[in-house]
């Protein structure tokens, strides 16, 4: 070899030639392969949402139950019982995700979040129905650990046997929503793999939409730049309502935040109303609540009329089979 003074023999010549030739061919092959792969980077949409079973209507049962009384737990139990009982909605082995509004760093009395006892009651019912996993979560606006604890919901739901999942960044997956204004958005994982979804909004004032109720509560399944949704808020709400199609909506009207919503903070803005409304029709429920608690004509609540037009339910809440009960 070079430097040793020894002459190259034939064997060495061939092996060296083979090595160098192989290396060159491999480089060429690798280079062509990589060049071939070259494409403008695209964001990949990887997530899919599990098809959820919509419970068929039963003409013998009410579609909406308005339960009044002092104990949120009992109100929830009664309302669900009147709708046909929890086993109508939850089957043994189901993965159930319960979505309260716990978006704000507020206490239960301030009524910016869903009533913790009401959430715990739903968890208990689902447990009785044999759900395999009951998840309680929300993609909060304020810092999630503070919201979950100070709202009292994490403690109540956890004690009732639910799994609490924090909205950590890695738990979001890009989903092609395919809505009118929303397409690729990061969606919080539990909502993707749930068999049944129970929406548990709270009645609150909101300056842009007049009122925030059940369908608006779905903002809390999204990550990403949610602050852009306000620019087409009614379309965004209906897109999400079309995506989510909850098994059941249980509206907390126990305390109502009448002014300075959706954050509140002032006990003077809160009215004790002692009511829980449960319905299988999310549009009728929002229409009823907007009308009853904020005196709004459902036709003028844009997201309600849009959802009606898109056949996600009916805004003529007085035409649905409803029942009022006292507990």
């Amino acid at each position, binding site marked *: 070899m070079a430097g040793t003074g020894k002459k190259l023999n034939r064997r060495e010549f061939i092996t060296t030639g083979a090595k160098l030739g192989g290396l060159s061919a491999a480089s060429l092959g690798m280079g062509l392969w990589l060049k071939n792969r070259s494409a403008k980077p695209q964001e990949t949409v990887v997530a899919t949402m599990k098809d959820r079973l919509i419970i068929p209507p039963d003409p013998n049962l009410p579609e909406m139950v308005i339960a009044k009384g002092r104990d949120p737990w009992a109100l929830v139990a009664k309302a669900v019982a009147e709708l046909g009982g929890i086993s109508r909605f939850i089957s043994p082995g189901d993965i159930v995700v319960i979505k309260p509004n716990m978006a704000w760093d507020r206490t239960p009395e301030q009524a910016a979040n869903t009533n913790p006892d009401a959430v715990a009651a739903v968890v208990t019912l689902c447990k009785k129905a044999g759900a395999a996993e009951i998840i309680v979560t929300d993609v909060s606006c304020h810092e999630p650990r503070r919201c979950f604890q100070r709202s009292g919901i994490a403690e109540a739901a956890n004690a009732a046997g639910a799994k*609490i999942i924090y909205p*950590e960044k890695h738990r979001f997956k890009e989903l092609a929503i395919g809505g009118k204004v929303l397409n690729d958005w990061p969606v919080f994982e539990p909502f993707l793999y749930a068999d049944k979804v129970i929406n548990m909004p709270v009645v609150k004032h909101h300056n842009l939409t007049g009122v925030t109720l059940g369908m608006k509560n779905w903002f809390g399944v999204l990550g990403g730049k949610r602050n852009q949704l306000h620019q087409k808020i009614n379309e965004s709400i209906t897109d999400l309502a079309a995506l989510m199609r909850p098994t059941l909506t249980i509206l907390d009207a126990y305390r109502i935040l009448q002014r300075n919503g959706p954050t509140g903070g002032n006990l003077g803005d809160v009215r004790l109303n002692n009511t829980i409304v449960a319905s299988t029709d999310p549009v009728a429920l929002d229409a009823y609540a907007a009308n009853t608690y904020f005196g709004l004509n459902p036709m003028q609540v844009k997201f309600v009329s849009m959802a009606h037009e898109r056949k996600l339910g009916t805004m003529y809440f007085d035409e649905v089979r409803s029942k009022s009960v006292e507990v």
Partner: protein
Amino acid sequence: MKIQTVVKLRRASQIFFFVLFLFLLINTEFQGALDSKETEINLPFPVSIFLEIDPFIALANAISTHTLYRSLIFSLIIIIPTFFLGRFFCGWICPLGSLNHFFGSLKSESKLGKKRIESNRYKKWQTTKYYILIAVLLAALFGSQIAGIVDPISLTVRSFSVAVLPTLNFGLNAILQTLHNSEIKLLQSAGNGLQFVLKNSIMSFKLVHFQQAVFIGLIFVTIMVLNLRITRFWCRALCPLGALLGVFSRWAILGLEKKSTKCSDCNICQLHCQGGDDPKIGLKWRKSECHLCFNCIPSCPDNEMIFTFFPQTQTTVVKPDLKRRKIMTSIAAGALTLPLLRSSTSLNAAPNKNLIRPPGSLDEKHFLERCIRCGECMKVCPNNALHPTFMEAGLEGIWSPILVPQIGYCEPSCVLCGEVCPTGAIWEISQNEKMGVDSAGKSVADPVKLGTAFYDRGRCLPWAMAKPCIVCEEWCPTSPKAIYLQKELVVDSNGKMAEVQRPFVDPERCIGCGACEHACPIQVEPAIQVKSIGESRAKNNQILLKKKA
């Protein structure tokens, strides 16, 4: 007790205190509890104790404020034993000392054999730390707490909070992401398992970013790398806490005694010396430099050295050999620093618009008397809202905390920054005090204001672009809201009439929390921005004519 046992104990103590230090720092975060509905949020245990037992911080705080804040009295736990024993803190407890010890013990080309013995000899430049000590304490006397910039505990907490732990988190997160994104199920579940372990141990709830992190991190790395040239360079040459403890150890009754003058000149004691204090027989032992690591004793083959109480001290130099002229220079430097720094800062003349201090902060003069820039507040902030300043508070206030609403807003009910602040620069306030309410939630006083929000109508969607938005109003946490709206019919780009709600700020109600700025969709330069004016801590930074109660 055998001396070998003492050395082992010392090593165990260093590991114990370093792990404790890391544990406390990692837990400087509200974790949230699923079994608690407590609405008054506090940390489960005191996390800033390393800063509170630090004698240098306590002394500097006492000199600048003529008081001793909250738990700083516990620094006596270190001070009094130092009077008797010497710099045991440096060799046995100090987390930065232990890190330096570790990096100093790594093999290094420039410290092999004779070179190492030479590098471990006492050097005159080791007195630098005493002059630094004098200068920063003088500055403290004149009301500037720049001591915290060079205090080793403060430096370590700051470096770890702002640079080291975030870097570690990014690294670990990258590994987890790779596992999560893998197509292979086995790797995915390995990722989930690892995630569970890491999230419940060393990883923080979310990835945090800090301004100045690279700068602060590089300084820390430099301090570590210097150990490869000279063991414990920081401790020997620069550390003002080490200097202070060196002064305190002057009358210490524990010391090195050389039983005879016999020495086989093997130099092994010098080879393992941490402080650069010349334990070797024939040289003069420097008491103020010794870290009490006890490496020299068991290494002596002649068994001619012992550590003992009331030792013979003929061959000992008990105090640092400071030169009078240099002392005068450092006094002058310390005394002149402050007037110089303040001649160019805007402490009184023109407060900086972006200098939004954390809730409970004292007025700027008193704030600078206390803030040691340890970064505890930045570590504990749940929204990653607090960052080290660069020049917003002048050169004097470098790395003190500032709220950057674009990155994170001040959580309405959170007071954790005041809870962890060891010196009271951010005074400890209760949640109710911050919100100005009583225990029943009734408004009884003004809430703590950090500043005031202002609209830039040229960038605001309903003001400039005929689009509905008002996310700022949605997020505004005061009640009644500080952002109020006016319905307006506007013409959009297609010539069509559109109704928008245009937002306004009521400066009286605004608390400057920055939620609006954080939520604004014009992210890169929000259409609503909080400026420091109106902050409750500063009399000279107000807008409104208001009768003070």
